[in-house]
């Protein structure tokens, strides 16, 4: 790892000022992705701005019809939160299956969503629940936020401060975890909220995506039978040592049906 200057601001405003003033400054939340990247010398930031001491970024609140989760909230805290379990149990369960207990004690929602790893779990929840991402400069809708492989709508120095998820009628997330890393080979989040039915897929493609045909079928009839004949084309899906694009396309159908069944339980 190359050395860097380390900062631990106490407010979002101070963090943003530090990020702006430096040559190549990077924010750090849980460090569970950033530190391994630095160890491999895949990045060489001049400055690290640790968001860990910013109190306004942590915590979970219920506001009207939404559950609002601070950017610095750890996966383990989402998994065990009574508010998340009561209002969006599928989100608590998703968080409880990210990596392992030690990863969940440090890794954060803001860091995971900002990173937009193609195999990360949270992007599927954000898209399927049509969550709103709040930053220090404004708001992003889920559909506009995830742009492509590791690419998001965030601009330089823009920080995720919180994410607001609507309460659900029914929802479930089922992933086929890579047996070594536990990242999603394919993960499907199915949700029925006041806003309608959405189906979001992670792990299969270069970036999280929705399956409109499944959403339309489930809006009419929310059963796994309603989507049993809907196939996702393998054309743009990932192919690697873990599985071919065709295999992933097949898994999307299987995970989606299991998710609908789980949501109906």
């Amino acid at each position, binding site marked *: 790892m190359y*050395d860097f200057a380390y900062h631990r601001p106490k407010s979002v405003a101070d963090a943003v000022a530090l990020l702006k003033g430096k040559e190549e400054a990077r924010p750090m939340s849980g460090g569970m992705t950033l*530190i391994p990247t630095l*160890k491999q010398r895949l990045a060489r930031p001049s400055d690290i701005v640790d968001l*860990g001491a910013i109190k306004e970024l942590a915590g979970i609140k219920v506001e009207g019809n939404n559950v609002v989760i601070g950017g610095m909230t750890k996966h383990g805290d989402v998994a065990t939160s009574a508010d998340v379990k009561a209002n969006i149990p599928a989100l608590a369960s998703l968080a409880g299956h990210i*990596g*392992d*207990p030690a990863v969940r*004690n*440090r890794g954060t929602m803001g860091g995971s969503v900002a990173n937009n790893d193609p195999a990360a779990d949270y992007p599927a929840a954000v898209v399927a629940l049509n969550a709103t991402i709040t930053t220090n400069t404004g708001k992003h809708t889920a559909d506009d936020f995830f742009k492509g492989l590791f690419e998001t709508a965030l601009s330089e120095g823009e920080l995720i401060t919180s994410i607001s998820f609507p309460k659900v009628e029914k929802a479930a997330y089922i992933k086929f975890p890579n047996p070594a890393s536990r990242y999603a080979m394919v993960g499907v989040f199915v949700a029925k909220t006041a806003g309608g039915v959405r189906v979001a897929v992670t792990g299969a493609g270069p970036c999280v995506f929705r399956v409109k045909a499944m959403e339309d079928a489930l809006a009419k009839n929310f059963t796994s039978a309603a989507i049993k004949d809907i196939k996702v084309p393998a054309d743009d899906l990932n192919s690697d040592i873990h599985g071919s694009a065709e295999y992933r396309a097949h898994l999307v159908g299987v995970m989606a049906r299991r998710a609908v069944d789980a949501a109906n339980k």
Partner: protein
Amino acid sequence: MTISVAMTVNGKAVSGKVEARTLLVQFLREHLGMTGTHVGCDTSQCGACVVDVDGKSVKSCTMLAVQAEGAKVITIEGLAESADKLHPMQEAFRENHALQCGFCTPGMVMSAIDMVKRHNYQLDEATVRRELEGNLCRCTGYHNIVKAILAAAPAMKSAGV
């Protein structure tokens, strides 16, 4: 960038000067000479480096030493009451032959204690196996590790630790 850090390790106040990039595990091993905490990978996957920071198990290879400023850290060296009285989890590992080369053992024991406490001393085999997700062992095949953890849970409860 050189920074001063101070924290409590196994109940003792410690401090030192580190680079910003110094990992917590490097601080423990290289600055404090506490080599019980191991480094088994550079991908944050193996769990040989697990320590307790303010009551939470963390991979000390994926945390900067400066991030532990002011924290209470417990390592494998801080578990046994004395040279001949091991922690119930260490004792259970010995009893059940839960280690061969011993490389993964410090992290296994730290993760195991954390797991037992989080589950209120009540564990079943499936839970133990799932909770060991972040700890890799190349020798034992895990069976005896699982047995040891299941045996240690009631022992920890009756010992009040």
